[in-house]
């Protein structure tokens, strides 16, 4: 395959030289909120919202400028400063504002801003509200660093930054042991992915002498195929960790222990999509290595089915949505793995998903708000009447995710399924199957939550959430409906210079595959209604068949991890501890004792008597003399 020429960015002028403000504002917010907490206990959350708003305004202004600019002037590189230079290496800190990153910046600050506003209501009674908003700001700053960086090293700073923020926020209610454990799990599993990132970046530095996107893009062609594949696979490992793709998927479901706005922002709309961003951003590498692309496709396809399966069998509303997130990111990965034909579709689905999934997560939060923080859908039922705004907005998200004609998901998912059929009939069929399953589990969720009879626990009085929470829902619901249509005829061409994708014609009327997809989706909805809509839902989960049990157990992801990783690692570490205690400890202790002994011996020399100090000096002079004379002799 011939790699497409990507356009080199031009130097920043005018407004673009202030692109760093996008990162600086939330970073400042986080600094003030976390560092000077006492003084901003009351005003802090509003300050946090204001900083994100500021970032959004900057992003919007840049976007408008970019729209007005000619195509070859749109990608702008903003050099901030040089961290340090050594020999042939120069480590620069710079930003790349191009067609791809600006879309992300808009998504992060736009959806992020709405979620900040929503949190004002959701977290109103939390004692540590100020800290929560500080972490959220920290997350936004790190996420913007990730997507705006112009080289992999700075990207990695953001990458680790979002990991940290995610860890802090999953474990925000740290008094719950489950939350603390979930945070730790997410952190540890992400380390595995990060290892891939570190190795990939090291390989780039070794091979290209630079980690800047521009150098990697230009150098990739001249790289030995083995290296491109290796770098591609390592990047994929990194992407799997961050985006909860099989085999590093298990942390995402547990991550739902965090407050719901966090699930919406970090574990649905933005951070978990970073893996997709990474693959698309590294298109110059992936274009050249069919093997790595195939691996991406396999990972994406497996994950989209696994996520959907888990989504079918969970009773916890947030975990259904989490499974669904995994599954949708699987779609994006699949599209990204297809190569130039799919990059734009991956990003397209990422953006629409960011809107409708955030919408549904916040909707779930609104439901929980009304139901005393109960997450079990078996305790819901008949909520449509009691939470009308939540219901209608949630319904918009529902239509979008199943791909109801003309809603956001309809356009974006359809393209991916078509592209998948272009790759191979098997992958296409599996993607199509996934769409049917999606329709099934989302229908199940809707019916169990909003339809049927009340199955509420005692003392629960559902009530609609305050305006500060419903307004963001309404905005996101509107986006869920129209975002697809708005971007459908535009995004491919827009992204072409940045993502190196092939633009092709898009018909309004669906293709045969499109019709087929609609049919499968309709079948999924129907089955969902057949199973869950006709008769009352039992308040206690029935035994279920093998498939349901497997899904409830998250496809035994934890068991797999336990057997394949945790137990062997524990075994190895026990062996290592034993070996360590016997062999290495002996050595290390010897070294430590030797150093300690030397140290104590040294203290004896340092006896406090001036006369012996003076004697040391005289001996030192003799030493100097001896060395000099020896040196002369040599």
């Amino acid at each position: 395959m011939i790699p497409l020429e990507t356009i080199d960015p031009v130097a920043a002028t005018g407004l673009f030289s202030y692109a760093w403000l996008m990162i600086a504002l939330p970073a400042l917010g986080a600094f003030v909120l976390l560092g000077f907490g006492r003084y901003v206990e009351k005003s802090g959350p509003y300050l946090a919202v204001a900083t994100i708003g500021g970032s959004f305004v900057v992003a919007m202004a840049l976007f408008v400028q970019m729209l007005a600019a000619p195509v070859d002037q749109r990608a702008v590189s903003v050099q901030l400063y040089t961290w340090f230079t050594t020999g042939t290496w120069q480590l620069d800190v710079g930003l790349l504002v191009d067609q791809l990153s600006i879309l992300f910046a808009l998504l992060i600050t736009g959806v992020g801003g709405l979620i900040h506003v929503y949190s004002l209501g959701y977290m109103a009674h939390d004692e540590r509200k100020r800290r929560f908003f500080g972490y959220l700001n920290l997350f936004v700053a790190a996420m913007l660093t990730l997507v705006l960086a112009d080289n992999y090293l700075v990207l990695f700073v953001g990458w680790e930054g979002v990991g940290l923020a995610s860890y802090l926020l999953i474990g925000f209610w740290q008094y719950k042991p489950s939350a603390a454990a979930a945070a730790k799990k997410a952190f540890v599993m992400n380390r595995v992915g990060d290892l891939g990132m570190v190795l990939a970046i090291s390989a780039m530095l070794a091979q290209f002498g630079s980690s800047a996107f521009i150098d990697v893009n230009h150098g990739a062609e001249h790289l030995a195929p083995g290296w491109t594949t290796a770098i591609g696979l390592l990047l994929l490992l990194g992407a799997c960790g961050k985006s909860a793709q099989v085999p590093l998927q298990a942390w995402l479901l547990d991550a739902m222990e965090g407050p719901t706005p966090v699930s919406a922002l970090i574990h649905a709309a933005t951070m978990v999509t970073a893996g997709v961003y990474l693959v698309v951003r590294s298109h110059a590498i992936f274009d050249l290595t069919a093997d790595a692309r195939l691996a991406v496709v396999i990972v994406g396809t497996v994950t989209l089915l696994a996520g959907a399966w888990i989504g079918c069998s969970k009773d916890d509303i947030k975990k259904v949505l989490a499974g669904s997130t995994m599954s949708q990111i699987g779609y994006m990965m699949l599209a990204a793995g297809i190569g130039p034909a799919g990059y734009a579709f991956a990003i397209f689905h990422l953006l629409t998903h960011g809107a409708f999934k955030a919408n549904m997560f916040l909707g779930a939060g609104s439901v929980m708000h009304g139901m005393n923080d109960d997450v079990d859908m078996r305790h819901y039922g008949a909520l449509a009447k009691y939470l009308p705004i939540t219901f209608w907005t949630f319904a918009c998200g529902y239509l979008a995710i199943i791909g109801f004609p003309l809603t956001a998901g309809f356009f974006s998912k359809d393209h991916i399924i078509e592209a998948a059929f272009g790759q191979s009939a098997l992958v296409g069929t599996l993607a199509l199957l996934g769409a049917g399953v999606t329709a099934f589990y989302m229908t199940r969720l809707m019916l169990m939550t909003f339809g049927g009879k009340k199955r509420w626990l005692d003392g629960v009085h559902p009530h609609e959430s305050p305006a500060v929470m419903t307004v963001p829902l309404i905005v996101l619901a509107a986006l869920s409906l129209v975002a697809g249509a708005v971007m459908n005829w535009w995004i491919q061409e827009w992204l072409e210079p940045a993502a190196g994708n092939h633009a092709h014609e898009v018909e309004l009327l669906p293709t045969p595959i499109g019709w087929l997809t609609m049919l499968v989706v309709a079948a999924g909805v129907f089955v969902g209604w057949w199973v869950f809509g006709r008769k009352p839902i039992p308040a206690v989960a029935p035994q279920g068949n093998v498939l349901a049990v497997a899904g409830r157990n998250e496809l035994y992801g934890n068991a797999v991890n336990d057997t394949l990783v945790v137990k062997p690692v524990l075994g190895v570490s026990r062996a290592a501890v034993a070996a360590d205690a016997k062999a290495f400890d002996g050595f290390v202790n010897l070294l430590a004792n030797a150093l300690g002994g030397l140290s104590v011996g040294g203290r004896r020399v340092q006896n406090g008597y001036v006369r012996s100090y003076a004697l040391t000096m005289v001996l030192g002079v003799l030493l100097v003399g001896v060395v000099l004379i020896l040196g002369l002799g040599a």
Partner: protein
Amino acid sequence: MTTVVFEWRALAPVLLVLIAAVLGILVEAVVPVVHRFFAQVFLVVASIVASAAMLVANWRAGIGGPVAMGSMMLDRPTYFMWGALLVFGLLAILVFAEREVNGGVSTFAASAATVPGSRAEAEASAARLEHTEVFPLALFALGGMMVFPAASDLITMFVALEVFSLPLYLMCGMARRRRLLSQEAALKYFLLGAFSSAFFLFGVALLYGYAGSFDFSAIAAAVQNPTMGSGILIAGMALLGVGLLFKVGVVPFQSWVPDVYMGAPTPVTGFMAICTKLAAVGATLRVFYVALGGERWTWQPLLAVLVVATMVVGAVWGLTQTDIKRTLAYSSIAHAGFIMTAVVGATAGTATSPLDSLSSALFYLVVYGLASIGAFAVITLVRNNSGEANAIASWSGLGRTSPLLAGIFALFMLSFTGIPLTAGFIGKWAVFAAAWRGGYDWLVIVAVLLSLVAAVFYLRIVVVMFFGEPADGVVVGKASAFTWLPIAVSALGVAVLGVFPGPVLALATAAGTFIR
């Protein structure tokens, strides 16, 4: 008889400091007691600020070259070192002026002449007497330190050495608390300092005998075109080197460092830790690069051996210390070793990597100085009812009781360790790169290993602060801006130079060559 030419403007930065010192003595004589403290602090701040302003103005006017009839050299390294000395000097002397933390009186003895434990002492304490003479003393020392690395003949260098040493000896013995320890430290410092001065002078005499001149350029010329055997040159170089390396704190001339750092009043320790080191490293660089540059093949192996010994002693002996000031004293010895690795390398810059030995050493000094001043200022704040609580054990749990202060101190420790994203990392990287390019790759490997050993004691302090149970009776003293300002400036500097070292690195690179 030549006419005396004296470049008033070029020398103004030094003169302003020394004049302020003389005025300070006058203040002691004429200003009433109640106003003295204020007057002295004002003199210090005003003179240093004015001197720095003069320095910048001279730099912009392009003033440079030999001054004071060739006895001093105003070249770019001199500008850089003067600038650094003025900034660090101001920050360090500001800590001298702290009184709030000590119940309204300074940390210096009420009356240094009284016998510790005597009734006279008690009376002086009760009368709330203070020695405001420390300020002119510090200014004299600072003036001497500025002349020391700028001197371009051996006599001027020796005079400068004594000018800055004598006030330091005095100030070391003026602690208000633990006076016996303080006086012992001062006496030791004085005796060993005098001893090393003798070596220095002997070296000067031998080099004069060899070259027939005290001038560095004349010595350099004599080394190039020898008129006699090199024996006397080598002996002179060795003895002169001993005198210089004593001040730097290089093994085996380091014995004074732990005792003096520990005994001296902590603000004075902070002042010594960086300003003395900066002046001494600067002078060492000038002597070895300018006067003895032709003999580098002789002194490089010698310095390499001493540097390894220095790092070993600093890192290993530091491991088992239980007193925080003593730990930092060993840390200072280890850092002397790290700085000297660059000196050993003796590389000139190239087009692709313009950072040479001299500029990387200068940059390291700045980085080390920031963390040192900040760390010693923090030490003055952690107290129990008998004054400063210097045992590491009493710092336990500080992270819980006073997270901000402990966090800042941890930042300094991380910078000393050389963790990336602190200034220390960039500094270490710079000096090690210089040594590596100079062909001393084995030395760099040893240095990296020993910085790992040293990391143990820095990180142990962090662990104690954040994971230990809070110690009984230890409080963080309420201090005024005189302490907090230097702490804040240092912390900011350490953090900013870690991610944004460019401008200072460029400044150090620009200061890369001595004029002969």
